[in-house]
């Protein structure tokens, strides 16, 4: 490499460094305010992972399903663990604070020392059902169901729980409007609790 080339490269590097310094304010500690690290996320980058559904219906995709279409899908993909009657499967242990296999029943048990927590008795939002089934079910092939299948299974569970009519069509519009029995069952965290000092 000639001396001339080297000089040229050094000058270019100095110019680049000056440019970087000019682009970012540097704090007293010597750290820039922002860093030229990371890349822009494209619309496609976001679309590939943006699967969350919110209670107001944001994120619900096109598609539809009913109790009738859901019955067949449920029996194919869900019944092995959750039971044909949606009450779970005998001798198939619920994972501690993990999979609650029973899906329906339990209304009126929340003040009991043995509450039965199900989609019917406990879940505050129907949209959560769609979100969770689409992202994590069925257990042996998560994320494999079509949008119509997920709407259909949601409709089947909600109808079996007597929350919607068996003829109701579940889609992006109707699912977000379903009012769950325990919709008002949640309160903000009041802790830290004030306990009386012990001797």
């Amino acid at each position, binding site marked *: 490499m000639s001396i001339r080339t080297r000089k040229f490269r050094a000058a270019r590097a100095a110019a680049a460094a000056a440019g970087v310094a000019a682009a970012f304010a540097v704090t007293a500690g010597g750290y820039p305010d922002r*860093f030229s*690290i990371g890349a*822009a*996320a494209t619309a496609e980058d976001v679309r590939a992972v943006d699967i*969350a559904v919110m209670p*107001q219906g944001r994120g619900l995709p096109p598609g539809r399903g009913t109790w009738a279409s859901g019955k067949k899908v449920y029996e194919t993909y869900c019944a092995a663990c959750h039971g044909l009657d949606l009450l779970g499967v005998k001798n198939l242990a619920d994972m501690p604070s993990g999979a609650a296999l029973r899906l329906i029943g339990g209304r009126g048990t*929340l003040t009991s020392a*043995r509450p039965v927590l199900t989609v019917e008795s406990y879940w505050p939002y129907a949209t959560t059902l769609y979100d969770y089934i689409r992202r994590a079910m069925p257990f042996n092939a*998560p994320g494999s169901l079509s949008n119509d299948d997920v709407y259909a299974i949601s409709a089947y569970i909600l109808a079996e729980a007597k929350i919607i009519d068996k003829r109701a069509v579940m889609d992006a519009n109707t699912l977000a409007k379903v009012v769950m029995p325990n919709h008002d*069952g949640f309160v903000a965290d009041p802790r830290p609790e004030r306990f009386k000092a012990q001797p």
Partner: protein
Amino acid sequence: MAKSLDEEHAPEERREALERALRHLGEPATATDIDAHIRAARHDRSADDSGPAPITRRRMLAGVGMAAAAGAAAIATRSAHAKAPPGAVEYPVPADPARVQGRMMGEDGGYGMRSQFETEVRWFNPTRTASFTPMASSHGIITPSGLHYERHHGGIPTIDPANHRLVIHGLVDRPMKFSVADLRRFPSVSRIHFMECSGTTGSEIMKATMPTVQKSHGLASTSEWTGVLLSTLLKQVGLKDNAAWVLAEGSDAAVMTRSVPIDKCLSDAMIVYAQNGEAIRPEQGYPMRLFLPGWEGNISIKWLRRLDISDKPFMTREETSKYTDLITKTGKARQFTFVMDCKSVVTFPSGEMRLPGPGFYEVTGLAWSGRGKIARVEVSTDRGKTWGLASLQDPILPIAQTRFRFPWIWDGSPALLQSRATDETGYTQPTHAQLIAERGPLEVGLFYHMNAIQSWGVDRDGNVKNVHPNQKV
């Protein structure tokens, strides 16, 4: 013939070591178990005791190399190898280790092994969705990475860091994605913090259910975590004015999700890529996880792939149907119960141990709080009639387990060992009765955020067992 193992080592010492080891595995050790272990050890090792070989010049020169070769052969062929505890390799035990060359370094491939005599392992629940730290034998405050508790909702994914990106989008000025290499270029922070599952001791509220401290309290561990402050990344993307909640999403089969308030994200929240000085383990979220100091473990989403900035919480399954605290007194459930309250437990003596006889014991244990530092720990040995201040061992760090010690002379009569911690906010650990009075009884499922004072009963024979306060020793 050289002396056999049992002649060389005091049999009582060895018996005690084995007894301790078996007890820590959660299995009550019987005399038969221990004899069987000793017999097995004698049988396996006596074959190697061919006696001292005559010293020759050639042998001396070759000594080091031969030791290495012998070691390699031991790894490859010895049946005893299979019996080594996880993380160890079983080697023949010389009668006098000072009279033979030791192994050459490097047989571990450059990543160390533990002693073949150490047997501590995590305990897995029957459904293999959680594993528990062996607290009974814990020392100091740091949990080894391989013994840190685990809780998975869809198993442990295998992720190639070269293909992993963290996408941040939603209510931001510039949606961005970050690779692991990107994260490592940002200014980093290292902090020692505990992490605890909100279900820890949740089955203990109405009665004693777990026999050992590992199984009752082992869903809590402490590590040094290294990563980048989430606030640094949020500055990169630029938050919109109405940004209020952040959805964190994992890349596991559960595609685990929780909503996090923006205030936490802008204070001490970290994106972590290292634990205890090395890359986080796969079961801890490799290559990157969220870490929210002092908050229930499940919200520190592992295998983090996405942060969606929003104006409202997402109401995911894990923050509605799970990880909400049903108050049976009212029928209403507390939601977004993030902080882990102050808690402590005596780790020695604890369930399934046996005190050999009356005399001096140093009671020791761990205390921690999601709200700051531990201010004091009191210990009672007499059913809570009197309490004495335990000494706290430095360092006493905010949101980290703190080791406490308390001298005790056991007079041989039945005793009840308890500890109660107070954190720097002035909050003191409650009793079971206080928690039940506040929240109502729960006979099934997990009583989340259960931080009651733990009791270990000691009977006249020195047997220690988990005792509910409603129960006689």
